[in-house]
Structure formats: structure tokens, C-alpha cells
């Protein structure tokens, strides 16, 4: 529990750091930190495989590509958004966020809100068990993911070569 609180606070801090840092690279690094802490949270939940996948996929691949784009575009410095949108919008957004947070907090402290559904039993989280689960219960979603990725790949090709073809 103490570990959870420490990890949770640092995860939130990292997320806030990501939001408030003006430098895109720093933001990306805070995001990596956040992912790493979330991976650690998964470890405390007895889900090492998910933790490793989290690091490999998010920290190792996606954010590296973010960094790549940031570096290639030279878009490190984010300008402020002053003058864009009225002041009342900010206050409104802030107020609504506060309402949302308070309602979430009230949900959390209601006591009966958190049903111990996930604590029903110790789930086997070994890679073999996960693999079986994936191909038994979730084989159809798994295949649908294949279609999804195929469509996304086609999309990348379509959007990136459209200009060149026109110029030929």
C-alpha cells in the first residue's frame, strides 16, 4: 500500500510534469517516466508481462518515435497559447475539471464504490497463461486487431505517397 501511494504520487507528478513543461522533449521524457512508473504499478499488481510490454511498446517504441518527430521538426519549444480563446473558456474548463475531480473523489471515498471484482482470485499472469487466454477467449478481437493494423498501415501509405504520385 505504501509502495502504491508512492508510485501513484510520482506517476501523477510525472504526468503533471509532462503537461506543464514547455519543452516538448522534456514532456516526452516525463511521459516516459510516467510509463515506467505505471509499469512498476503493474509489477506490484503481479502482472510482470504487461509491465514489460508497457515498457517495450510505449517507452521503447512510441515515445522514441515522438522524440524522433520532435527532433526532425525542431519543434522543441512550444509557444504559449495566449490570445487563443477567451479567458472565460479557461475558467470554465477549470471549473468543469474541478467538478469532474470532485465527483471522482466522492466516488472513491464512498467506500462501496470499489468492488473487489479483480481480487476474486489470484490470476495466473504468466506469459503462457496470457497467451492461452489471448487465443482462446480473445482470438476474434485479436484477429480484428490485425485488420485494424492493416488498415492503419494502408492509411500511412496512402497519406504519405499521395503527393508524389500527383507530381509524376
Amino acid at each position: 500500500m505504501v509502495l502504491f501511494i508512492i508510485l501513484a504520487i510520482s506517476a501523477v507528478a510525472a504526468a503533471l510534469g509532462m503537461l506543464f513543461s514547455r519543452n516538448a522533449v522534456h514532456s516526452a521524457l516525463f511521459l516516459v517516466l510516467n510509463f515506467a512508473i505505471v509499469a512498476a504499478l503493474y509489477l506490484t499488481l503481479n502482472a510482470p508481462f504487461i509491465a514489460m510490454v508497457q515498457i517495450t511498446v510505449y517507452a521503447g517504441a512510441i515515445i522514441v518515435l515522438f522524440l524522433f518527430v520532435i527532433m526532425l521538426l525542431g519543434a522543441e519549444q512550444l509557444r504559449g497559447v495566449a490570445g487563443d480563446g477567451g479567458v472565460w473558456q479557461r475558467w470554465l474548463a477549470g471549473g468543469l475539471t474541478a467538478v469532474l475531480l470532485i465527483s471522482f473523489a466522492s466516488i472513491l471515498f464512498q467506500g462501496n464504490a470499489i468492488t473487489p471484482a479483480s481480487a476474486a482470485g489470484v490470476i495466473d499472469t504468466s506469459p503462457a497463461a496470457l497467451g492461452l487466454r489471448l487465443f482462446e477467449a480473445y482470438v476474434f478481437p485479436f484477429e480484428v486487431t490485425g485488420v485494424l493494423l492493416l488498415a492503419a498501415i494502408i492509411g500511412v501509405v496512402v497519406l504519405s505517397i499521395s503527393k508524389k504520385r500527383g507530381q509524376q
Partner: protein
Amino acid sequence: MTPGQIALRALIVGFIIAFAVITGFAYTTLLERKLLARLQARIGPNRAGYIPIPRRGGGKERKLLAGFMQPAADAVKLFFKEDPQPTMVDSWVYNLAPMLAVIPAVVILAVIPWAGKINIFGAVFEPYFAIAPGLNVAVMFFLAITSIGVYGVALAGWASNSKYAVLGGIRASAQMISYELALGMSVLVPIMIADSMDLGVIVEAQRGGWFIFLQPLAAFVFFVGALAELQRAPFDLLEAEQELSAGYTVEYAGMRFGMFFLAEYMKMISFSALTAVFFLGGYRGPFVDQVPALGFVYIILKIFILLCVMIWVRASLPRLRYDQLMSFGWKVLLPISVLNFLLTAIFIVLAQEGFLF
């Protein structure tokens, strides 16, 4: 054992292994310089430290192991060098990058099995001797940590505020991401044959024969991928001197540069160890079941041989051009490893269903 005891033991073993590998790192640099020199018909560093052996009958003494103090001399030099920080760098990231380079290189040691079940002074190490033994996601851990290794390089390049460094960093990250796929695919093959992601189980599965004989293609892809991941010749074009002076390390000096150096050589050692584990039977060898301590000897021997091969490759092969590097990674290595993976999977299923043999 209680969790506390496990943690304490992991801490002690971790310290021992980390210090051993750091010493190993120091001597790997010497090995590289000496071996490269020999391959190029030179002598190599031979001034710092030697064991004098007097000649019988007087005359000049013979110098045994000439140059064995060279790593220490290098270290002293690196420590005492001035460490200037260029202007306009992003100070935070600039200082963070060397650490981010070293941490994965050290952390990856956690899962490598150094010997089988062994009894050292009454302490029984089960199921095998490693910092974190019996981790059922060890391979995923290795891939995860490898994938994080990009950050040190990419951020060093970006934070240095120098064109050469940025180009080096971008080249490096693109290269590492590209070759990671082939690397991961080739690792799947030993996993499938051993039916586990636990490195100890993978080693024990090679009792009947090393996987390199069963899967030479996967072993080849893994080793090539490892070379690319380590940015060693012939894939070292992120530090191509002619084009980028020293790539991402160009603005670093002193011990900060030393840390990149440390990371590179420690990763060489750990990748050699992993190649040994995945394909060369790890700590296994003759009589290792009777005398478990031999496991240390075998794996260190295998690491040594693989290090020599890496150095040999560096001395023999010219550097690739960038487009060649990318097309080799994406159009040759990746399809090969996917195909190999698929065929192996089909073969295993057929064997299980009894269609073969």
C-alpha cells in the same frame, strides 16, 4: 525464503556481478585494442603496467602482459580530464543522457543466468545463479530494457546542441528501432523451442544440443541484430568519423564520455552473454551437472569468444552506408526472421501433433 531474504540476496549477487562486469568492461576495452592491433599487425598499448620477468643470465627483462594497467590509466585520464559543457545545451537532458545510456546496460545483467543450481558456502541458488532467477518474463525484460537503450543515444545527440550530434542521435535511434524487430523475432525461436521465457529454462532446454545448430539462421539474425543494437562495426555509422566526427558523443568529454563508453562495452558483454544463453547453451558444458561451478567458466569462456568475434568483425568488415543499413534491416533480416519464426512454429506444431517422426 522470505521476500526480504530474496531481495537481500539479489542485492549481494547484483553487487558482485556488477563489479565483475565493470572489471570485465575495463579489460574488454584492452582486449579490443590489443586484438584489433594484432589483426592489423600492430602491437597495441603496451606501456602501462607489465610484469617484469628477469632473463636468465642478465640482460633486459622480459615484459609479461605488457599494458595490463592500460584500463586503469584510461580511467584516470577520463576522471581528470576537464569536462566542459558546451553553451546553449539543455543542461538537464545533457547530464541525464549518459546515465540513461548506462542504466539499461547494467540492468540487463539482472536476468542472465551465470550458472546452474549451485551451492556457494551453504547458500543454495535455485533454480540457477542469477540476480533475478526464475523470472518468467525474462526475455520480455531483456527486450524492454534494450528498447530503452535508445534514449541515452538519442537524447545525448539532441541535448548537445550540435548538428553532428543530432544526426548521430537520429541515425542511432532509427537504427536501433529497426533492428530491434529482427532481434525480437529471432529471440522468439528459442522461446518456442524451450516453451518458456525463463532464460534458465532456455539454457536447460539446450541440454541435448545448442540452439545454434538447430537454428543457425535465428542465431545469425540475433547476432547481427545485436551488433546493430550495440552500434558496433559494421553498423557503427552513427559515429562515422568521416561524416559525423564522433556522432552523438562529440560534445561530451571526461567521465560523461566515459559513461557512454562504459555503456557500450557493458552492453557488448551482456549481449554476448545473451547470445550464449539463447544459442550457445549458456552455462552448459561438459561435466557442468557434476560440478556446477564450471558453469561460470563456460559462460565466461563463451562471452570471451563472442567478444573476440565482435572485434574480429570490426577489424574485417567495412562500414555500411545508411540506406544499405536500413534496407538490410527491413528487407533482409526482418523477413528472414519472420519466415524462420513461422516455419519453426509450423514445425513445432507438426511435431507435437505427431505428423513428424
